[in-house]
């Protein structure tokens, strides 16, 4: 790692940047301009979010709080858990622990910093991770591993992941972190099927083992009253997510493109916490106002194209992807990360066995609830088994594309996404057979060095032009 990078603690630097940005709306115009000088690389995103109104401000506060939790965890006697976006943090909050979600940290860093997370990604490779491993973990992992260089990041206390057999590259990064930093490791493991009794039971058995592990290494017993509180909050959040998802179906959709990102960022960071509820309330209010007025969530008000991201979005510097959608009049009608598969969602009705419900009537019911909820997070639900089997990626994508009236389907990921790269070509062919123009992006959602944003943008434009979509 470059020596100058070692001069700053990554977590502290990022936390203070976000905290500063979150305070911008409180100041006068002069104060605002002055503050922007202190966050030069983050200025564009901060402006974008602040311009989005209260939801953007709530999002900044939420992200700032996320880092604040990490920075103060040990002082408060809390354990820090390295985990993945497909593992709900709700259980960790219920057990008074602090999650460090690698993919979220990498995404935030990639958007905020001019050089993205390149230095940290490369540091991972310096210590042995293959350069072909997924950038979404490598960015944050590089910073976390930087703890060995003298405290670039708060020391993590344990590692919990849930992607073995769903995304081996992901699981491998967490296993590596555990060994490299000599921290306890637990993997939740999902079968290739979902919805049948046998798989459901496996989810519960495995989840119970995870709780035992977390109790052992945190010293905290799971408090079921607290779990009930967290799940009640999740229940509220799910209802609002369902409303937002329903409104994505409207034409034009009243949901601004950036709300998609905020929706899942909130869920991955603060599921079951008040911070995410506030963000959802704020997004829902604006979306409902747009819907009542019959206007598009796009800034220019004209929805020219409805695009369904069948996998993930693009996260590099300055939220370029969101700006691109706004400029072209493209409505973002969701990605694999947007859907939560709660039983009250319309698409879930089309796929029996795909969803979860919430029941807090007893400890066993709560454990069942949270285990099944966790098993429906992105990736671990949709791409755990053969893509063309019942309830998997193809069926989900077709149902969503139809229900949300997509004009086209876009695949975006990272070169490290071995699992989807193993099947995306036949998948795209199947989507085309069903009438959906489908484009495979060959970039890296977190690393512009793989393909520059400018090249990615050109390829998207070319696709839209050749297929007569724009």
């Amino acid at each position, binding site marked *: 790692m470059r020596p100058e990078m070692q001069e700053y603690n990554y977590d502290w630097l990022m936390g203070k940047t976000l905290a500063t940005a979150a305070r911008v709306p409180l100041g006068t115009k002069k104060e605002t301009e002055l503050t922007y000088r202190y966050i030069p690389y983050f200025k564009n995103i901060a402006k974008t979010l602040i311009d989005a109104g209260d939801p953007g401000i709530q999002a900044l506060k939420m992200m700032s709080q996320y880092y604040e939790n990490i920075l103060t965890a040990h002082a408060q006697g809390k354990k820090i858990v390295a985990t993945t976006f497909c593992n709900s943090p709700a259980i960790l909050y219920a057990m008074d622990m602090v999650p460090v979600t690698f993919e979220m940290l990498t995404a935030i860093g990639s958007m905020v910093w001019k050089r993205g997370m390149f230095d940290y990604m490369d540091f991972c490779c310096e210590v*042995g*991770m*293959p350069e072909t491993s997924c950038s979404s973990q490598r960015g944050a992992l590089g910073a976390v591993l930087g703890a060995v260089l003298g405290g670039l990041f708060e020391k993590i206390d344990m590692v919990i992941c849930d992607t073995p057999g769903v995304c*081996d590259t992901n699981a491998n990064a967490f296993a590596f972190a555990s060994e490299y930093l000599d921290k306890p490791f637990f993997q939740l493991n999902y079968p290739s099927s979902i919805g049948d009794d046998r798989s459901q039971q496996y989810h519960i058995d495995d989840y119970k083992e995870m709780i035992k592990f977390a109790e052992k290494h945190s010293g905290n017993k799971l408090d079921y009253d607290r779990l009930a509180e967290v799940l009640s909050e999740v229940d509220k959040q799910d209802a609002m997510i369902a409303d937002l998802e329903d409104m994505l179906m409207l034409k034009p959709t009243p949901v601004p493109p950036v709300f998609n990102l905020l929706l899942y960022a909130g869920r991955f960071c603060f599921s079951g916490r008040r911070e995410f509820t506030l963000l959802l309330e704020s997004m829902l209010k604006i979306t409902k106002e747009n819907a009542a007025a019959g206007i598009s969530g796009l800034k220019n008000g004209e929805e020219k194209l409805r695009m369904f991201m069948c996998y993930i979005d693009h996260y590099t510097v300055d939220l370029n992807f969101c700006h691109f959608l706004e400029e072209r009049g493209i409505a973002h009608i969701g990605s694999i990360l947007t859907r939560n598969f709660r039983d009250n969602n319309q698409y879930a009705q089309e796929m029996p066995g795909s969803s979860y419900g919430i029941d807090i009537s007893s400890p066993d019911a709560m454990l069942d609830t949270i285990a099944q909820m966790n098993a429906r997070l992105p990736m671990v639900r949709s791409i755990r088994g053969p893509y063309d089997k019942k309830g998997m990626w193809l069926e989900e994508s077709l149902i969503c594309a139809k229900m949300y009236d997509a004009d086209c389907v876009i695949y975006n990921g990272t070169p490290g996404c071995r699992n*989807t790269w*193993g099947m*995306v070509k*036949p998948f795209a062919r199947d989507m085309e057979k069903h009438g959906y123009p489908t484009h495979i992006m060959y970039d890296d959602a977190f690393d512009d060095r793989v393909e520059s944003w400018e090249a990615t943008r050109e390829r998207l434009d070319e696709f839209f032009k050749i297929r007569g979509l724009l």
Partner: protein
Amino acid sequence: MNVFHDAATHVECESIHQWKKTGKPVVGYTCSYTPAEIFHAVDILPVRLRGIETEGMEIGDTYFGPFICSFPKCILQLAGKGKFSFLDGAIITPGCDGMRRLDECWRKAGEDFKGIVPDYFYYFDVPHKAENHGMAWYLDEIRALIKSIEDHFHVNVTDEKLTAAIREFNKGRRLLGEIETLRSQDNVVVSGTDVFAATVAGTVMPREEYTRLLEDWLAELKTRIQALNTGESRVMLVGSISDEIDLFKLIEDTDKAIIVGENLCFGIRYEGNEIREDGDPIEALAQHYLGSSVCPRMYGKYKERLAMLKEKIHQSRAEGVIMQNIRFCDLHGAENALFERDLEAMGIPCLRVEREYGPHIDAGRMKLRINAFLERMDAARRQL
């Protein structure tokens, strides 16, 4: 030895050819977590699927994306070319992300290349943990696999037949264990290339024939007195899946090294432990195949694998370790880095190298890296 080399270097080797003449079925499988004993028990020839003899990648690249390891791509390429036409069935296992997607890619390729998908095509869902519920899942998977084989091939898999199959496979394991002991001596009388060929042959040959030939070969080896190592370094080869004799030859043809051990998916990795021959044979198979956590797909078991590797290094008296991973094989790539860190700290020289599987297009580069490493080892020895 010629039979072993034929089996190790040809997808449809003579043994398979002869077996087919009897009209008995052949089932291919992709992963070492598939208990081959089940097939042997009912006179089905289990054949580990491989990608050797691949001459291009146009079919593999059509269905798999660009960032996928070349091993499953080579298998798909051969399937598309009809090289697996001798198969009556295939078992796909989620060994890793690339290998499990062979399921979809092979089936989808079958829509374009008629007749390349065997009539019996089965997805065997092996969990990533061997704890109670993981083991229970795996046991159920084995039972479901047995039921499916019985239904499709009209056979009856009994406990007695399974136990007999376990005994037969254990014979081979014991013989390979003896060969391991033999090459741990000061004077190494057999090349690593030959031992690996014999090991790979065991994954494709009818087991009785294999055991008989292995017994004969071991007896012959015991009579050898001429050492093959006359100053060469003793090295061990570990890492990504490999059934490539050429890789072993490439190392030993430098005349600077002799391979005295390996820790590879196709090698003598499972052979250290025999399978229990008493009690419930299905439980014995499950304990053996899932319980040993030898592959990095079993996350969180690095320390066990490191201990196993250290033991192998100690037993074989290897002086250095060559760690290879196929490009895009992150599991072995990352684990090799940890091995390197821990073994180098113990004073064991290690070479970590990334490569492609299949046609040895990067043989020159590999040779350069390996030569440099062996020279480093040699120089270090001279200083002692």
